[in-house]
């Protein structure tokens, strides 16, 4: 075991996969010589050379498009989009090409690419460096969408994503990159895709969350246990699409109360899907409506710190929402 932050764990996962399989490569803006703006790919170009740690122009459609072409020719590229906010120019490549490759070729071709992108709010990130874009890709059959939070999960999921024969969009919360360190196995291991994780067991309500919100939810759960004797079960989806419905529904049926917390603006976000599944398939077990907490209907995360603090759900609001549900 080694003690690693999220950023280090992802780096290790990439390096180990590149050592084990010479068709694995990374590509993106500043991922080579500079080692990536968040230092995720630091040292990879020194170790594996400029062709396997490839610096690309500022052109996201090209990064993903070239990755698709490389995959069609036997490589396993891991494309980095510097900030998830920059991903729209690559939408067409991801949604209309990568996601449909296998289907359109009647299984003759697959598209083994991983697209990594740091998402979520950071102070000062504002409209174009703080967005939560995960829902944008979750309505696209053919893609897998992954969003781990803790270092050990992230490393194992990244390895699983790279080895998966189909395209995986891998979201990393940039505020969680250096938030904490955790023991991470050094031996080769994977964390399965499409499998949720129960972080904390409880009997009174279930809260589903991911990213930095998950850290706050776990903190709030401890406070609720201490101050009110309410035991909250906390579930992290890990894979947002396709969802691990079994784990989510099992927890909902056990606790009978359900809350989803994410920092994306609410309408059309991931929480709507989770809420509708629970309300549809665990209806008879529910003692209250499935509640959701998310960001307000504002076109972007504000730059000003007080406005950003208002926009992103905080510990107090999360705890308040949990109590509201508990008292329903």
């Amino acid at each position, binding site marked *: 075991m080694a003690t690693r932050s999220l950023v280090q764990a992802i780096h290790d996962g990439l390096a180990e996969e590149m050592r084990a399989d010479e068709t694995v490569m990374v590509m993106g803006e500043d991922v080579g010589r500079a080692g990536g703006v968040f230092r995720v790919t630091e040292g990879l170009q020194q170790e594996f050379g400029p062709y396997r740690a490839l610096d690309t122009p500022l052109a996201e459609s090209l990064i993903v498009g070239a990755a698709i072409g490389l995959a069609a020719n036997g490589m396993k590229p891991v494309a980095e989009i510097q900030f998830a906010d920059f991903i*729209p120019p690559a939408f067409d490549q991801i949604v209309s090409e990568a996601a449909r490759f296998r289907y359109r070729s009647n299984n003759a071709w697959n598209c083994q690419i991983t697209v990594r992108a740091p998402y979520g709010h950071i102070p000062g990130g504002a409209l174009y460096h703080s967005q939560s874009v995960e829902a*944008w890709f979750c309505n696209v059959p053919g893609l897998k969408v992954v969003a781990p939070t803790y270092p050990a999960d992230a490393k194992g999921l990244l390895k699983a994503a790279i080895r998966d024969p189909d395209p995986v969009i891998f979201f990393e919360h940039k505020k969680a990159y250096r938030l904490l360190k955790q023991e991470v196995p050094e031996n080769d291991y994977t964390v399965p895709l499409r499998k949720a994780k129960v972080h904390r067991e409880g009997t009174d309500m279930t809260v589903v969350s991911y990213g930095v919100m998950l850290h706050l939810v776990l903190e709030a759960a401890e406070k609720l246990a201490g101050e009110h004797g309410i035991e909250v079960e906390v579930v992290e989806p890990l894979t947002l699409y396709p969802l691990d419905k079994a784990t989510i529904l099992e927890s909902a049926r056990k606790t009978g109360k359900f809350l989803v917390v994410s920092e994306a603006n609410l309408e059309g976000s991931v929480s*709507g899907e989770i809420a*509708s599944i629970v309300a549809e398939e665990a209806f008879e077990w529910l003692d209250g409506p499935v509640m959701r907490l998310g960001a307000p209907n*504002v076109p972007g995360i504000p730059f000003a710190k007080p406005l950003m603090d208002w926009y992103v759900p905080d510990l107090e609001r999360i705890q308040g929402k949990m109590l509201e549900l508990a008292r329903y």
Partner: protein
Amino acid sequence: MAEKTYREALKEAMTEEMERDESVLLLGEDIGVYGGTHLITDGLLDMFGKKRVIDTPISEAGFTGAAIGMAMMGLRPVVEMMTWNFSFIAADQIIQNAAKVRYFSGGQVQVPLVIRGPNGGGVQLSAQHTHSLESFYGHFPGLKVVAPVTPADVKGMMISSIRDPNPVIFLEAGALYGTRGEVPEGEHTVPFGKARVAREGSDVTLVAYGRQVLLCERAAERLAEDGIEAEVIDLRSIRPLDEETVIESVRKTHRAVSVQEQWRYYGVSSEIAAIIQEKAFDYLDAPVERVSGAEVPAPYARNLELMCFPSEEQVVEVARRVLYQEV
């Protein structure tokens, strides 16, 4: 009122607005000389000239970006996407610029822009021309997203969209361009965020938008034969969403089925179901169910395409299920 097709209603709305306001202009691929791939803009080049009906290169990012610039400077462009699938190329312009300019300029700059075109399928255009984009665009504050189904609403909502100071995503039911309905002459607007009760009923609420409204109406007729009165809600607007009308209906019927053509997971129906169960939980006598398209890229073959989209039978069956009358 005269009876007109969906296509004629669209063209009438744009023509009347172009006659009324010379800042209104059209841009898109093949909309001028050729009259539009779906013949929506046929004849408008002759009426308004090439400065107001602009044939663009095949470059969605280019002409959408240009239209945003025109809108910021005071024009009112209406952009045609040949199909909404192609808008992915322009996604950065639409969600990062059009939707945010007013917000990040502190309200100083507005973007009175309409982007319109056929959304969804039904006419054998296969995987890359049949994507339904309502839940994608519906997620973004700063955009308005509409999906009308009757020719009257098509005209009224297009006029409202052109006059609105914000970017509007106008999703047309491409398979219905030839369908007919009564359309009011002249000035006729339909507000955003106001659903239409397409059919009144007391036993179950069917929520839909676009082409699926007609499907729900047909399903409702069949249910009525067995004495089940379904209320059909036509959302018309996806963003803003008329929660009030939907919730009011569910409080009356106690049961709801949300119907969409797009893929089941993370679709508009997910949001509708989440809202209903949250705001009408104590009124619900059954889980809110969803009827959706099959979770595959749209096939080309007619028989497979039909299997992929919701059918009357499915809606009837699911409506019976929420009434606990499973057969």
